[in-house]
């Protein structure tokens, strides 16, 4: 059977499949359903400095082949996460990636530092889709200069590798990727959700209390694939790909586009066993399509393309 072993900066994964941040809490609930040792890694819900209570409800809505969410970064704060949640996860041999959010560069850096110092995480993922309060609410993830600054500041502060999670709500994803690469990022996570809205016909109002929400699920997969494919050609950084993955076939498509590993988000909500089902199926799928190992698949769509245009 094909080995799914995958090496990324700071991470030695037994397989390239991990739950995406926000769809898996801190792992407790899923650990009642299956052994978390099966996962390549666990990405926890975003951590902020202080506890956050999030948005009003409703927080989710169903859309065609997707969903909107506006949770609003609810989390118990980095201190509680380090004392109550991470120790629970450390009973598993699965690497933990901590997702970090903040309203200022200082908050990102201080949350990252606390997580790093806990010694309980193997990597950080910076969720830069958050509005920067100092810059009047403009998202870190929409401005390459801000994105680079937050990356550089966190890199100066921590020892573990730093993955920056890019937002797709941009006209130029390559520019964003290059900005954070230049600032020292060790890897990229992409993509986060696209901003969307649903209006309820009966109340005539946006269905989500927050009005807008992040669109995720199969609907956005073509956008994720395109962005990863583009970035792969302009950046040497490893990519954790995500956006609409629900089957092993989807994973292979992401690998061919250039992802080195993948995260599964919304699919866990539809089927809590999504990650393990994918992990079980991936080896035979890779064999079916003639791959001898994982490395052959990664970026395979691009190598192949390059050969053709070169010939």
């Amino acid at each position, binding site marked *: 059977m094909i080995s799914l072993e995958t090496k990324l900066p700071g991470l030695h994964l037994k397989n390239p499949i991990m739950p995406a941040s*926000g*769809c*898996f*809490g801190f792992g*407790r*609930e*899923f650990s*009642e*359903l299956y052994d978390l040792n099966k996962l390549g890694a666990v990405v926890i*819900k975003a951590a902020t400095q202080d506890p956050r*209570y*999030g948005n009003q*409800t*409703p*927080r*989710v*809505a*169903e*859309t*065609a*082949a*997707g*969903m909107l*969410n506006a*949770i609003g970064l*609810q989390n118990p704060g980095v201190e509680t996460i380090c004392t109550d949640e991470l120790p629970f996860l450390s009973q598993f041999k699965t690497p933990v990636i901590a997702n970090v959010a903040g309203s200022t560069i200082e908050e990102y850096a201080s949350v990252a530092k606390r997580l790093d110092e806990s010694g309980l995480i193997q990597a950080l993922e910076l969720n830069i889709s958050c509005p920067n309060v100092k810059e009047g609410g403009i998202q870190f993830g929409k401005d390459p200069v801000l994105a680079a600054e937050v990356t550089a500041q966190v890199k100066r502060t921590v020892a573990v590798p730093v993955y920056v999670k890019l937002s797709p709500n941009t006209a130029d994803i390559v520019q964003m990727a290059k900005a954070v690469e230049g600032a020292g990022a060790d890897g990229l996570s992409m993509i986060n959700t696209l901003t969307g809205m649903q209006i309820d016909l009966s109340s005539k109002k946006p269905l989500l209390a927050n009005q807008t929400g992040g669109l995720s*699920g*199969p609907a956005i997969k073509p956008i994720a694939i395109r962005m990863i494919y583009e970035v792969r050609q302009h950046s040497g950084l490893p990519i954790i790909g995500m956006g609409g993955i*629900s089957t092993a076939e989807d994973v292979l498509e992401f690998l061919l586009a250039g992802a080195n590993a993948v995260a599964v988000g*919304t*699919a*866990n*909500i*539809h*089927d*809590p*066993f999504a990650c393990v089902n994918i992990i079980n199926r991936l080896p035979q799928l890779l064999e079916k399509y003639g791959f001898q190992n994982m490395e052959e698949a990664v970026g395979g769509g691009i190598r192949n393309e390059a050969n053709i245009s070169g010939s």
Partner: protein
Amino acid sequence: MMQTELTVLENNKIAEETVEMKLGINNANPATDIGNFTPGQFLHVKVGESDTALLRRPISIADIDGNGNITIIFKISGRGTDMLSKRTSGSRVNALLPCGTGYPVDNLKLDTALLVGGGIGVPPLYYLGKTLAGSGTRIISILGFQKAEHVFYKEKFAELGESIIVTDDGSYGEKGLVTDCLSKMDIDFDCFFSCGPTPMLRAVTNKLSGRPGYISVEQRMGCGIGACYACVVPVKGETGFKKICKDGPVFAANEVSL
């Protein structure tokens, strides 16, 4: 908590756009697996695939019979419940179960329980009433529906004890809302149990404020298992939320803000 493929044993239309479905758990041990399901818990039902109905639908346990078969009762109120209503006998229904925290029936020693239900909030009260009645509690129920065509389970509740039906338009039973009924009557009870749309719960808890009671709260859900923070409700008197799918859907009447 488990994910399982239930088998549809019966699909009965019991009122306008209202389906009663009997579901069998395959290979389950009625004693250990189903014996500890409590009234107020729910099934998180996969009604379609990720392109047709990505989110699961929460549906309460309306009854569990001696063989460990589960009854659910639901109203066809949108695409997902419509899809579910089309599953015929023999087909499979994927569900997570049992979800959430139900009514604390084991810790309650009651003389008289008042059940106040509205519309699709009525089903879980049946399993609750049956369970309480089984341990000797006297049951009084006040059940509200929009109109005569929506009324269901009136005989079943009547078997449990005194049962009053109210309809918005008076087309069956009393005319008005369940709270009108509460105002008019002088009912003696130890604890009330209410389930229904949020405006009704708000009215009921206001009317009965200070009395011991439990309510079952509704909210749009994601995972249904406590992992995604979609389904929260504010805790009364402090900044903070509880998860309806895990800490609830049943809460003490004065515990959460509606």
